[in-house]
Each structure stands twice: as C-alpha cells, then as structure tokens.
C-alpha cells in the first residue's frame, strides 16, 4: 500500500534518514519504534513531503509521492497527526477539524459526514467544538490533531507519537479509539511512531525498529 524503497533524507546537510525501505500492508497497523532522535518524526515528515527525500522513492498504491508537492498527499487520503499538535490557534476546534474538508473542496454532505464520524470516534471533541484551538491543553490538542487527521484519511493514517503527553486514562482512551477505528475502517492502513510501545501492544500488527536513521530487523508483534 505505502512502500518506501531506499529513502534517504537530510536536514541542513546532515543526513538523518539512511536508505530506508519497507512496505505497509493495507489494513494493518504498523508501529515504528525507536529511541529519541532515531528519525521517526523525520521519516513521517519525509513521507508527507514536508522534507524532501534526497534519494529513493515513496509509493502509495503505485503513485510516486516524492515528485508530488506536499499538499497532494491529503488528496490521496493520507492523514497525518504531527507530534506537536499544530492546531490553528484562532480557529475554533470545529473549524480546525473542517479545515481539510475546505482544502480538499469536499461536498457539504461529505464533510458533514466525516465530521460526524470524528465526533463518533472522539466524543470529547464535540464538547469543546466552539473553543479556540489556542485554548486547549497539550493532551486535548493531541485528540484534536487525531480528529483532524481522520477528516483527511481514506487510505492511510500517520500518527507521530500520539501518546506523548497524554494522561494514562486519556492514553488508554486514545488507544481504544484507535481500536474502534480499526473496526470501523478495516481497510485503513495505520502507521504510528512511538518511543514507548507497550500501549500499542494489542493493536499493532507489525513493528519496525528505526535506529540512527536506518531500519533494523523487523520484529513480529507480541
């Protein structure tokens, strides 16, 4: 579904990702594990086109991504929730959620429906629809970011350290949400980076280890 072949990327001339190749199988949840600075965020940013790959190719169902501009990813139904939330402070939560719909010129009906889906999966968001994006706490922000990614996603969903900074209760909640998501959208390909894998143990189908910018041997999930 999403496949990388010998992808490399560097920031400010420093090579960060080295010759990365792997494939995500449709409908599976793959977890990218690696200690701090391993290159998880960079990898996701590269897939999203926010950082140009210096070499290699990234394909989604055959379409080459590296040659496409960053904004084209969303059109292909790839949702992305960044590590550091990145909400639009002056928009309300709901407007934040609806932004992708606007960007993708979705029909009113379509965006209504996706929004409803998000609220179904993440009820607590509905409670703060009218709050400004700048006014939600770190953790709350994570939830909104997930919801926003869900508005986009059709084929794949990329989450960067979703649990970072979540209170355990919320983290569990979040994990369950992902579980529900699985059931509702079985064909969805999930790609999650995490520095502390336990929480994901029960939803992950595959695990990939990244160390100093390159992939280590794949390990089957427990």
């Amino acid at each position, binding site marked *: 579904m999403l496949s990388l072949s010998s992808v490399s990327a560097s920031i400010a001339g420093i090579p960060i990702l080295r010759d990365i190749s792997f494939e995500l199988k449709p409908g599976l949840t793959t977890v990218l594990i690696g200690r701090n600075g391993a290159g998880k965020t960079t990898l996701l940013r590269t897939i999203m086109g926010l950082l140009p790959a210096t070499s290699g190719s990234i394909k989604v169902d055959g379409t080459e991504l590296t040659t496409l501009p960053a904004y084209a990813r969303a059109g292909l139904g790839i949702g992305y929730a960044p590590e550091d939330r990145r909400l639009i402070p002056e928009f309300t939560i709901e407007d934040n959620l609806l932004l992708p719909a606007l960007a993708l010129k979705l029909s009113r009906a379509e965006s209504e429906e996706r929004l409803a889906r998000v609220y179904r999966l993440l009820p607590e968001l509905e409670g703060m629809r009218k709050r400004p994006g700048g006014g939600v706490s770190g953790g709350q922000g*994570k939830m909104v970011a997930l919801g926003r990614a869900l508005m986009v996603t059709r084929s794949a969903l990329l989450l960067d350290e979703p649990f970072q900074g979540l209170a355990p209760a919320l983290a569990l909640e979040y994990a369950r949400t992902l579980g529900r998501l699985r059931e509702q959208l079985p064909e969805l390909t999930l790609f999650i980076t995490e520095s502390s894998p336990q929480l994901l143990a029960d939803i992950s189908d595959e695990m990939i280890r990244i160390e100093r910018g390159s992939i280590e041997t794949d390990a089957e999930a427990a």
Partner: protein
Amino acid sequence: MSKPLLKAENLEISFHGVKAADGVNLEINEGEFLAIIGPNGAGKTTLLNLCTGYLKPSAGHVYLDGKQITHLSPRQIAKRGIARAFQIPQLFTDHRVIDNVMLSNAARLNLWQMLSPLDRPRYRDEAMELLRMFNLADHANDLASTLPEGRRKLLDIAVALALKPRLVLLDEPTSGVSAIERFGLMETLMTALRQAKVTALFVEHDMDVVRRYAERVLVWNRGHVLTQGRPEEVFQDQRVIETVVGAV
C-alpha cells in the same frame, strides 16, 4: 514537617470561560518531591504559569517563604530561586547546546563579567558536567534546533538546573523521552536534585515514574485539587483511577 517553601492560596484564572484554576491551594515544603497528576487540560501547566508569574491570577496569591510573589515577573521570580522546565521545551535554538547551559549559568554574573567572554574554561566545565549528567555531552556543540524532541526536553531541564535554583518546577519531564531512557533520566535527575538540595514539583503523566519518585502526589482535575497524599494511597482512590490512571 518543615515549613512551606512555595504556597499558593485559592488561585483563580479562566480562559474563554474555562476555569483552568478554580480556587487552588497548594503547599510544597523545603526538600520534598511533589508530583502533580491529572487529566489533560486539568490546569497543571497553568498552575506552573501562575506560580512563575507568566500568567497573573484573577484572584489569589502566591508566596515564596511567606513573601508575596504573585505580581512579580517570571524574571524576578527566577531570581528568587524558582527555575522551570517546560512542557514544550524553551531553548535558544540558534545557540549551541552548551551555550544554552552557559547562558543560564551566566545569569548569576555581575555586569562586568557579563561583558567578558562567555565561553571560558571555567563556565565550560561547569556546563559540560551538567550535559554529561543528561548525556547530552556529545551534542554539546550542535545547534539546539537540531536536537530531536526528546533531547530538547533533557536540555530544557539542564538549563533549568544550571540556574542552581532552590525550587524547580518540571512540566512533564519524561514526556517525549522514550520508555527505555525514562527511568535513567529520572535517576540522574533525582540524584542531581538531592545533591543540590533542590525542592522539586513535577507534573507527570507516567504513573510508574510518579509511584517510584514522588513523596507526595497532588491529583488535579478541572482546575482544582481532587485529592492528595502519598502515592500508594492516592492510587487506591477510585476517582483518581477514573479520571487519571484509567481502569486497565
């Protein structure tokens, strides 16, 4: 029981009608390690903002050894010995890692020293020691902006400790630090604090960390204290399990 070092009296503040602090009372005693836990959006970070003068409470007072500090600026409060590490690391991204720490050291210098070179062996060694402690030593000469999230967190803490504070407020010190490194970090942190006899208040989401290191836990929800006490008793509390720990 020693006397309270920091004391907050029914602090109040709200944003767009959301009460982030709703009559908060808090005491932290000389030399103790107090942990604050609570669901996201409970108001933990806000509390730290109030105690360090970044935000002004709409009501209530903050005292440092009995003296009002409510209306002081973050700078004045820092001068009085309260250091802070942030949930979102606050670094001098255009400076090298070591400069970040040395600048923090320099804050204690007088005007004349302020005008003589910063990068001197004495300051350097002092800073390197800290960096080693947080195993950032081999990044000493990298630009802070090039650190990954996790390492930024560590550097942010190092900068706070470099101030040689009496009280340090840590906002989720272990978030973004991978599970493998977490306890290592906490160990170094704790030894550092004990050596320097620094009182610490830390906001934390990792309950294992809290259990292991906190002497007292303050459970926070919707802008006020839900309950507090020793970790083992707090973690028995049903409300706490619901709102924070979560039933596994």
